[in-house]
């Protein structure tokens, strides 16, 4: 059973890390939000929506690739995974644009799953970096 939390020791001051990965994460979150909003439209996402989202996914993927080069170790690994998911998001968006009916529904699910996975991976990279920064200040 989950337990009421207890206090753990403070690892160190100055854990704030705000850099390119934080901005990349915001972009990936915005992408997921935009895809989620488009998918929820009562009349369905339009081709213009899909085209705009595909372009946005491409931009975020390019930013992620650039961030991979600037990082190393676990952070770079997480970002590499994020790039894969962003590229899959792009690919599934393109396929969804051509699909209808059940194939479109399946495509939307795949797009959302890949977009969410990309946010998760960038988020995990942010956590790794923050944790490392906190450790360095001990």
């Amino acid at each position, binding site marked *: *059973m*989950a*337990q*009421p*939390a*207890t*206090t*753990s*020791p*403070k*690892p160190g001051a100055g*854990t*704030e*890390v*705000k850099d390119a990965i934080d901005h990349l994460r915001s972009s990936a*979150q915005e992408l*997921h*939000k935009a895809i*989620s909003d488009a*998918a*929820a439209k*009562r009349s369905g996402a339009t081709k213009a929506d899909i085209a705009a989202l595909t372009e946005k996914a491409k931009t975020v993927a390019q930013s992620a690739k650039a961030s991979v080069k600037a990082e190393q170790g676990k952070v770079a690994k997480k970002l590499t995974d994020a790039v894969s998911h962003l590229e899959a998001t792009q690919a599934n968006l393109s396929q969804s644009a051509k699909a209808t009916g059940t194939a479109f*529904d*399946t495509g*939307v*699910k795949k797009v*959302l799953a890949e977009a*969410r996975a990309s*946010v*998760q991976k960038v*988020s*995990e990279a*942010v*956590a790794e970096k*923050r*944790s490392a920064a*906190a450790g360095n200040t001990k």
Partner: protein
Amino acid sequence: MRNFVAIVFDDSRKAYEGLHALWQLDDSADITVHGTGVVHRDGLGHIQVDTKDTHPALGTALGVGIGALLGALAGPAGAAIGAAGGAGIGAATGGTVGLIADLDRADTREEAADETGFVLGAGQSAVIADVSEDWTTPIDRAMRKLGGKIYRRARSDIRDDAWLSPDYPYGYYLYPYEYIPPAYSF
């Protein structure tokens, strides 16, 4: 450390203040939030998930996903119960009674989660979050200030409980960004 956290509040408005405070802690890099959701138990005892409109194909999955997570937060027995989805199995463990499988609808609620009954009383709300935290104090301090009661389970423990699959996507259906329904906007 990667944890799932449930923070229980006496009402929904407080829960959304808690949700906002959680994302503020992320913004200040005190913690990293990977996903959040808000659930509440109505007067009939049903747990409902607060969510925006979503694609029809995702509605049921969302309820089942968060139901599984709530079950997992209740412990090993709860994990099996929660992951059972809409199976309608009853169970009791350690004085906490679960499960009434029930699906409800409301204006901003797509599908209800399974009831695990472990922390949430009628009329109460809870923020459910998937977080990375190097120490527990930031969340504890912020949430207690708002009157919240905090429960934690390590993500690794929850994965060990999974009887369907160790890779069951607990938390998959939590929002990866702050989502506050218009009714609770500040």
